[in-house]
Structure formats: structure tokens, C-alpha cells
């Protein structure tokens, strides 16, 4: 099975434009990994769940519409697997506990530590956004997908996609401010 990577990567040589599932794995492992992380898969389970995603990539690549960008398609597969994963209550992340593991704000003196804590705050706030809103938020704000592409990827009506983006943004802002306040930010 060979499909062009479409717009998921910078233009490359002709021989690199045709990729099979092996090439997709090599090029997009990190993207899938981080997408799963943002979709709420716990660090300890990321390898298992990423493995499952790429099994699906292998199985479904022949069905991929090569005229579409690859990353949103991969995100859709990752979302499906992550949704199943999250159905189990025991997989829900304890946000407060995870955030506390990152750093102690009173001791956060150096810039690197502050950056790590900010990243942890962003991640924790993102985890508090509902999965359906978060999928739109991540695809649009982090992956740079235009909303029409987001809607196509997730099988949503355009208005629904815009609505989820708006609600997701607001949910993220609210969660972030609440978490940041607890951590001593203003």
C-alpha cells in the first residue's frame, strides 16, 4: 500500500512522496504519540495505545483518501483508539496529582522549571476540556488544521465544528486560569 503523504509534510523528493505504512510510522510516530497524549492517554499507556493506532494505520491505509492531508486522518484514528481507551474510568488521569508531580511552585526559581510548569498547566487544562471539544481544539490550534478540514476529519457539520472550537477555547481558558491560580500565578 502506497499513498502520498499529501500536505502532512514539507515537499520532498518524488521517491519520498509515496509512503507505505512503514514510512508513515517513521515520519509520524511522534505526532501520533503527542496526539494521544493530548487526547488523554496516560504516559504509562502511550506505547500500548500508539501500537494499536499503527495497527489500524496498517489495516486502513488502503482506505485512506490520498487527496486528503495525512495528519488529520491519523488524528482521527488516534481519536478513535483514545476514545475507547478513555471509556474505562480507571484510565482517567488524575490531573491534580499529575500536576503536583511536575514541580513545586514555591521552588520554581529557574526558567526551565517555570517552562515545564507552564507546559504542565497547559496539558492539565487541556485534559479538562471534553474530548469532543478537545479534538477540535487540538486539530485547529495545535495542528493548524482549518476548521473545514477539522469538520471533514471528525465527520462534523461545519457549524458544529465552529461551535466546539468556541466552547473548547472557553473551557480551556477557564480551566487554565483555575489551575494557574492554584499554582500561585496571577
Amino acid at each position, binding site marked *: 500500500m502506497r499513498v502520498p503523504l499529501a500536505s502532512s509534510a514539507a515537499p520532498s523528493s518524488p521517491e519520498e512522496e509515496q509512503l507505505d505504512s512503514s514510512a508513515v510510522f517513521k515520519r509520524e510516530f511522534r505526532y501520533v504519540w503527542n496526539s494521544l497524549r493530548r487526547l488523554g492517554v496516560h504516559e504509562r499507556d502511550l506505547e500500548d495505545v500508539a501500537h494499536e493506532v499503527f495497527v489500524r494505520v496498517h489495516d486502513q491505509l488502503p482506505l485512506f483518501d490520498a487527496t486528503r492531508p495525512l495528519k488529520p486522518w491519523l488524528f482521527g484514528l488516534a481519536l478513535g483508539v483514545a476514545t475507547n*481507551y478513555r471509556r474505562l474510568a480507571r484510565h482517567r488521569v488524575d490531573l491534580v496529582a499529575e500536576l503536583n508531580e511536575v514541580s513545586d511552585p514555591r521552588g520554581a526559581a529557574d526558567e526551565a522549571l517555570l517552562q515545564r510548569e507552564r507546559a504542565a498547566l497547559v496539558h492539565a487544562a487541556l485534559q479538562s476540556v471534553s474530548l469532543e471539544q478537545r479534538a477540535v481544539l487540538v486539530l485547529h490550534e495545535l495542528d493548524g488544521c482549518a476548521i473545514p478540514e477539522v469538520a471533514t476529519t471528525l465527520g462534523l457539520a461545519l457549524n458544529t465544528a465552529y461551535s466546539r472550537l468556541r466552547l473548547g477555547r472557553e473551557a480551556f481558558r477557564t480551566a487554565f486560569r483555575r489551575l494557574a491560580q492554584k499554582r500561585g500565578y496571577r
Partner: protein
Amino acid sequence: MRRELPSDPLLLLREDAAPSPPADAEARVASRLAASLAGSSSVAGAPVTPKSSGGTAKVLAERFVRWSVVPLGVGVALGAGGQALRGGGELLPQPATPVASVVAVVASAPVISVEVAPEPAASSAAVSSAPSAAAKNTLSAERNVLDRARKRLAADEPLEALTFLEQHSQQFPRGQLSEEREAMRVNVLVLLGRVAEAKARGEAFVARYPSSLMGSSVRAALRSGDAQK
């Protein structure tokens, strides 16, 4: 200590840098994929090609080549490490029911004994210089049965999945994918509510495959279950 943040948190979200996966995570997943897809018709699509440069890529290539021959049953004696890796690729039939979590659920159930057919030790694997076509065909047949079980499990049809697992047990009581079968069986039994049997199977799995890639997570789940008692 109070610190400043941007007025709009979305600015921080947009700047969020995706962290790199842990070292060797890509190689581990690649090797599991190789094992998972070994029996499929398009195994060539598995992530086999190493990166063009870099130490990690070299390790990935070496591991893949070494590990991928194990599920193909070519008779290369790899020892316990290879045996563990062989089963690691399919120990997660579907993400909703990873083995570790399942074992955690059933850990509080009473222990019952489960008779398990003896399996040849990894270190006793036969050594031969060339792959056996028969071994490949057998592995492919095993894989087909387990694939059916996995698909039924993914479709929330655990009873049908168990049927295929039982079929595998009967056809391949000492099959190359027995480790994978037993891990999946734990999942299925829990989904069917047969938690005591699932717990016993889970413990038998840990005992039989102490160096399995999934063993650490299974044992961790068992410890977690014990702590809740």
C-alpha cells in the same frame, strides 16, 4: 511567589511544544508492530526501515531485524528476551482493555487454580539455519485465528472472541502465539464477568512469561489490586 502569565491562555496553548517520546519508545513500538503484523499478508508494510542516520535508528534497525524473526518462527534461538518480545506485540487486543488494567480489576477476586498446558521454554527453541515454510504457514494460521478474536473483542463481542481463543488453544496448544492468546483471554474473561478465572489466568500469565514485555504492567496491576484489598 507570584508569576505573570499571558492574558489569554490560548497563546500558551498555541506555543505548546510537543515533547519527544522517551528514548527507545519508537523502537519498542516498532518491534511490537513487527510482531503484531508478522502474520498479515502485508507485513512488508510494517515499520522495518531504519532511519537514515543516528544511533537510535541503528538500534531500531537491529532490534527490528532481530525481533521480527521471532514471530516468523524461523527457529532462531533468541532466549527469554526474544520470547517475551514475541508476545508483546498483541497483548493489547483493544485499547479499552489493556491487560494491566484488566488484571487490576480482577486482582481482588479469589484465586482459583487454572490448569495450563505446559509450554516449551524460550531457551529450548530449536535452532536451525533456515526458515521453515511450515513454521511460517503455521504462524500465519495462528495469527489469523487471533486476529479474528481481536476483531471480535474490538467489536465488544467477547463471547465470540473467546470462541476463537478456544479454537486457537485446540489447534495450537503449544503455538507460537500462546503468550498473546493467554493475554487476550484475560481481557475476554473479564469482559464476560468471569473475574475469578481471569485473575487466575492473569497470575498464570505472569508466572509463565516472567520476562514478557507486558509482564511488568501486569505485575504492576496485580500489585495495585493487592494494595486495594
